C-alpha cells in the first residue's frame, strides 16, 4: 500500500490557481522529491496532505486513510517540517519539543537530545534568538524525534550550512533505511539528485513529470560534441534519429541527443573520430527544461 496516494487533488483559492489534478504515489521506504519553482504549488500540495488546507476536489490518502476524515490518525504517524519553522519567539526548542512529545504521547526527549547533539542544535535558547538555520535544526528534530513512518519536509535545508546539509542527507538516508518514506520539496537539486529515488516536477499547479531520477536523466537530451577528420561528414548527423540542434564549427559538431544511442554510434563508425564527448544533463538542467516548456505537458500521474 502506498504511503501517499493522491487522486486528481485540486485546491483553488476562489478563482486563483492553487494545484490542479495532482496525482502521484509515494511508496514505503521511498525518498520522493517534489520540485517546482516558487509559487508552483509545492507548499499547497503539502498543506493539503496535512489537512491544513481542504481540497476543492480530488482526494489524498496517507497510509490508506483519508487525509481529511482521518487526519488525526494520519498525523500520529508522520513528521512534518514546514518551510520556515516558526513556533514562538520566546519559546525554547526544549519547551516546544516537550509540548509536542506530550501531544504525541512520547515519553521523554531522549531521541530529540540525540538529534540535537548530532545537529549541534541549541534547545535552550528562545527560538526568536536563533538564526533561520538554527531554528531549522530544531524543526528537523521535532519532525523526526518520534520515529515517524512518513516524513514531510518542505525546503528542509534552507539556512543550513554545508556540513549540516550533509548531516541532514545522512539523516534522510538513515530514516529511509529504517523504512520511513520521505516526501521532500527542495530547491537544492543536487541534494535531491543524491538522495531521492523518484521526483515529481510541478509547474503552475500541475504535475509535469513523475519519474525515477535515473529515468528522468536517461530520457533527457544528452549533449554531444564530435570532432571528425572528415568535417563534411558531420552534416549527415542531422539525419540520425534523436539528433537535434546540430551546430557545426570547423571539424566539430555539437548537438543534443535523445533516445537510443546505437544509430548515432553506427553513423560515426565509418569515420575517423578525433574526439567524442557525451554528457548527461544534471537534474537542474532537466528541471529547467521542463520550466522552459520543452518537457511533456503533464505527467500521467501514477506511481511506479
Amino acid at each position, binding site marked *: 500500500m502506498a504511503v501517499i496516494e493522491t487522486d486528481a487533488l485540486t485546491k483553488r483559492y476562489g478563482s486563483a490557481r492553487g494545484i490542479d489534478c495532482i496525482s502521484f504515489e509515494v511508496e514505503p521506504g521511498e525518498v520522493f522529491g517534489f520540485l517546482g519553482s516558487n509559487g508552483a504549488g509545492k507548499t499547497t500540495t503539502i498543506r493539503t496532505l*496535512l489537512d491544513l488546507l481542504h481540497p476543492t476536489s480530488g482526494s489524498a490518502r496517507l497510509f490508506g486513510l483519508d487525509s481529511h476524515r482521518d487526519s488525526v490518525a494520519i*498525523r500520529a504517524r508522520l513528521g*512534518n517540517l514546514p518551510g520556515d519553522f*516558526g513556533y514562538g519567539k*520566546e519559546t525554547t526548542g526544549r519547551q516546544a519539543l516537550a*509540548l*509536542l512529545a*506530550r501531544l504525541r504521547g512520547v515519553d521523554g526527549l531522549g531521541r530529540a537530545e540525540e538529534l540535537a547533539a548530532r545537529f549541534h542544535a541549541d534547545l535552550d535558547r528562545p527560538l526568536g534568538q536563533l538564526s533561520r538555520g538554527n531554528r531549522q535544526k530544531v524543526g528537523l528534530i521535532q519532525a523526526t524525534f518520534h520515529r515517524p513512518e512518513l516524513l514531510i519536509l518542505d525546503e528542509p535545508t534552507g539556512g543550513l550550512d554545508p556540513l549540516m546539509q550533509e548531516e541532514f542527507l545522512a539523516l534522510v538516508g538513515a530514516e529511509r533505511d529504517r523504512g520511513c518514506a520521505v516526501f521532500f520539496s527542495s530547491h537544492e537539486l543536487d541534494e535531491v539528485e543524491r538522495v531521492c529515488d523518484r521526483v515529481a516536477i510541478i509547474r503552475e499547479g500541475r504535475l509535469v513529470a513523475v519519474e525515477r531520477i535515473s529515468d528522468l536523466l536517461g530520457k533527457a537530451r544528452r549533449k554531444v560534441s564530435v570532432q571528425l577528420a572528415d568535417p563534411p561528414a558531420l552534416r549527415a548527423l542531422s539525419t540520425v534519429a534523436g539528433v537535434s540542434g546540430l551546430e557545426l564549427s570547423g571539424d566539430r559538431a555539437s548537438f543534443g541527443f535523445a533516445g537510443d544511442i546505437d544509430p548515432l554510434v553506427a553513423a560515426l563508425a565509418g569515420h575517423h573520430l578525433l574526439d567524442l564527448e557525451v554528457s548527461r544533463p544534471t537534474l537542474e538542467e532537466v528541471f529547467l527544461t521542463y520550466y522552459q516548456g520543452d518537457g511533456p505537458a503533464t505527467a500521467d500521474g501514477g506511481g511506479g
Partner: protein
Amino acid sequence: MSQLEALVASHLSDRRRSLLSWGLPLGLMSAFIVAIYPSIESALTKAVQGYPTGLKEAFDVGQLENVEQYLQAEMLSLIVPLALGYLAVRAIASGLAGAAESGRLDVLLSAPLARWRLVAAGFVASAIELAAVLLLTAVLTLLGSAVADAGLSAGHAAAGFAEVWPLALLFAGFGVVACGFTLRTTIVTGAGAGVLVVMYVIDLIGKLDPSVSGIRYISVFKYYGNAIEDGINWLAFAGITAAAIVLVVVGAWLFERRDIDA
C-alpha cells in the same frame, strides 16, 4: 498529562506576563480608588447629589454612600469589564490567530491533535488567565482597603470582581468565532473589541433614553448587574457563561472547516 492539559499549560506559560501587565495596574488602580474613599467620602456624597439622574443611572452612581458603591462606580461598571473583555479577546487572538501567523499552528497541527482541542484549550486557558487577573485585582483592592481602613467587605468585593468573569468569557467566545472566519490577529482583536464597545454603547444608550431601552436586551451588559451590592445573580452568571460556551462551540465548528492559511 492529556493533550488538553498540555496545551492549556503551554498557553498559560506563554501568557504568564499578562497576569502582571493587566492584573497589577488594574489592582493598583482599584486599590487607590478604595484607599482614597475615606478621605473624600463626605465631599463625594454632596457632589453626587448634584448629578443628573440619567447620568447616575447610566454609570451606576445612584448613590455613593459606601466604599462598595464607589468601587462599583469607579471600576466595576466600566473599566474592569471593558479591560477584561479586551484581554479575553487578545488572549484568544494570540492563542489561535497569532499562532497561525507565527507558524506555530502548522507545527501543532502536524501532531495528532484535533482542531477542536486546540480551540478548547485556548478558551480554557483564557478563562484561567481572566480568573487570575481578577483575583490579583481583587486581592490588591482589599489590601488597599485594609491599608486605608476603608472597610471594603471581602465577600462583596469578591462578588463584584467574580461577576466580570463570565462577561469577559463571552468576549473570548466572540474571539473564537472571529478566528473561525480569519486568522489575522489584528482583525480578530478589532472585531472582538468592536463587539465589546458596541454592546457597551447600546446598553448605555438604552439606559439614557428609556424610549429605546429595549435595545439593551441584545447587549450582555444588560445582564451584568451590581454584584458588589446585590450579590451575584447566578442565573445571569450561568446564562452568560453558557452563551460563551455556545460561541466557542460555533467558533470551533467554523475553525474545523476553515483552511489554515500560511
